[in-house]
């Protein structure tokens, strides 16, 4: 049976991909950013996930104002990195996991989630930057990817409660899948940032760190944060953080935080990153007693 073993949260800041693509990620001045992913690169080589369900938002790249899906799941065979205006990132083609993706889509739709199924699309920095930060510069991505695009561009984004519940539904779906697969769920985006208006440049370090603290055990509390509160506290674009709740919902209640990284600023944004491993099956069962 397929199994979700771990999850991670990470910002998907375009600058990070840009620096890697230009070969500048090793420069001393960027060390405070990239050092925080060194653990991750080792960790992922041990974890060897077969499939990553990668939760991200499209930034007016593949979806425009004609059509705005709240949740779109990629069921395609592969996805090309998008040209976001400077040519496509020189990173490998993203291989899909269509059989598992269709299974998850079918299962969560029957569980009452109104997904949009996507079979053909390009993927922007929201998806490819996390792959680069975790896997580094590779000839091909060492796993299959199921893109899960969440609308965070047009108000309203799905609520935190909805995102958490979707994560739980995804977990149930994956656990019913007959193939032996190691699956990870990644939540991306954030942390605090504000890209427009007089208030541009807002960063709320305290809020971000509290979010990372609460995500481990008090995620039900985080799920109650409204988009208005995200905007007020962490900037208009800070509301991307709901996507981390999908990841959290897909994990066991008991998780171990095995890594954390926080750095301000990266261009206009606070960078956050953490890794959770599911506590062993045993301790979950204990909890149920």
């Amino acid at each position, binding site marked *: 049976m397929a199994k979700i073993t771990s999850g991670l949260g990470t910002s998907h800041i375009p600058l990070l991909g840009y620096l890697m693509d230009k070969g500048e990620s090793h420069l001393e001045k960027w060390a405070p950013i990239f050092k925080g992913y060194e653990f991750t690169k080792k960790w992922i080589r041990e974890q060897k996930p077969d499939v990553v369900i990668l939760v991200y938002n499209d930034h007016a790249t593949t979806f425009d104002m004609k059509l705005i899906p709240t949740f779109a799941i990629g069921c395609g065979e592969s996805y090309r990195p998008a040209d976001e205006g*400077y040519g496509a990132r020189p990173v490998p083609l993203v291989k899909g996991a269509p059989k598992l993706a269709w299974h998850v889509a079918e299962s969560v739709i029957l569980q009452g989630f109104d997904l949009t199924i996507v079979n053909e699309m390009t993927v922007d920095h929201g998806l490819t930057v996390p792959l680069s930060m975790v896997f580094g510069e590779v000839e091909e991505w060492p796993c299959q990817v199921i893109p899960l695009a969440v609308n965070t561009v047009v108000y309203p984004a799905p609520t935190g409660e909805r995102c958490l519940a979707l994560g739980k539904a995804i977990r149930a779906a994956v656990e019913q899948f007959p193939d032996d697969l190691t699956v990870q769920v990644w939540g991306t985006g954030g942390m605090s940032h504000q890209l427009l208006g*007089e208030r541009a440049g807002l960063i709320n370090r305290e809020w971000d760190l509290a979010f990372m603290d609460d995500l481990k055990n008090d995620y039900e509390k985080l799920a109650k944060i409204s988009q208005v509160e995200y905007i007020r506290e962490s900037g208009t674009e800070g509301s991307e953080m709901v996507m981390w709740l999908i990841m959290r919902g897909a994990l066991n209640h008991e998780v171990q935080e095995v890594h954390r990284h926080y750095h*301000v600023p990266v261009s206009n944004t606070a960078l956050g990153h953490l890794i959770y491993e599911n506590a062993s099956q045993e301790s979950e069962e204990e909890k149920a007693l």
Partner: protein
Amino acid sequence: MNNQQKPYDNIPGTTVFDGDMARIGFHLNQFCMSLMQESNRVAFKQNERAYLDQWPMTEAQKTAVLERNFSQLIALGGNIYYLVKISSTDGLSVAAAVSTMTDLSVDEYIDMMRRGGRSPEGNRFTDQGENKPSEESLWQK
């Protein structure tokens, strides 16, 4: 001016891109989207006015594009993820575009970011004593 009578109308210095904004900005944002294609970027740069006239945008929107007036473009329904396609076409960074909406120069803006960004203090509520967004950082790096 925008976002009136919305639960976010008391957040200073931002505009939430909701249905009302999306409606008035539809063609403006779709124009921005067209700049994702190189051939369109060339056509736009060759004759900006003529290119804009192919889109059913308001005169105010076209003028604001020609003037690269981002604050005005936001007020007229532009979404920042779409608008940065204009500044990309100009070869400018996101920070360069974004800083024009603040009362800081690009360099001041970048410096503020380096020092940890703009503090949320004073920037949560329009009626929070001081209405004007503060560029002071709550914490120093």
